[in-house]
């Protein structure tokens, strides 16, 4: 599937989804228990991810201190992860038990990701002490 970087396709119509389906698919397939993904599920996951990005950005901006300076900063996002129940799955906790059970199987993939450490330092999600 061709990567789509812009919102319009060859005919000038608005593409349903701007995120590249090929990349979304790679991420989905990195999940060990997933066998196959039908095309509709792929499109919906990509679309949901776009909605998520929009929601995370606007929520963080509205609730963050960067609002006065007309800026969205890292700390706005870190605060969102810490304080909002909806976005809590993004927060990094030191204890393994604090990780949402659903993410346990994605440890190996997520270990490479640095998200929003609760103690302010850059740390991998589901700390390596779990290994």
């Amino acid at each position, binding site marked *: *599937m061709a990567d789509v970087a812009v919102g319009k396709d060859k005919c000038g119509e608005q593409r349903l989804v*701007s995120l590249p389906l090929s990349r979304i698919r790679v991420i989905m397939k*990195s999940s060990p228990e997933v066998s*196959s993904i039908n095309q509709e599920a792929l499109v919906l996951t990509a679309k949901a991810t776009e909605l998520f990005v929009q*929601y995370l950005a606007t929520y963080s901006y509205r609730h963050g201190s960067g609002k006065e300076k007309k800026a*969205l*900063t890292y700390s706005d996002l870190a605060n969102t992860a810490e304080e909002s129940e909806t976005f809590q799955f993004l927060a990094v906790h030191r204890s393994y038990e604090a990780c949402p059970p659903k993410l346990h199987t994605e440890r190996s993939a997520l270990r490479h*990701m640095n998200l929003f450490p609760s103690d302010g330092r850059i740390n991998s999600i589901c700390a390596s002490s779990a290994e």
Partner: protein
Amino acid sequence: MAERPEDLNLPNAVITRIIKEALPDGVNISKEARSAISRAASVFVLYATSCANNFAMKGKRKTLNASDVLSAMEEMEFQRFITPLKEALEAYRREQKGKKEASEQKKKDKDKKTDSEEQDRSRDEDNDEDEERIEEEQNEEDEVDN
């Protein structure tokens, strides 16, 4: 199997554009904020996939489908996404149906022309080139390396 970190990241340009379009004009987005949102999006994909997969397994299916993704959104407490997702699904299905009908129609037209080939030879050659180009485009889009 270890994945290289860059394999699980989404393209910065697209993420940045989505953020910019969501926020009011003139809001500055720090590089760290953008990077964090991008990583969060990847985590979201994984979380959603895992959740959707649980629903597929409950239904004794090995292939994730659209309803699994919608159920996952509900489960993850992103109900606000469900309506726009359902609309996107409808639009996608209409688009697919349109493509299928268009290629079936072209096949019918092609068959008809072969019958009257002697009369319209030069016109056929032009149309065949168009068909090949359109088929190539469709094949690119339909390719799913499962």
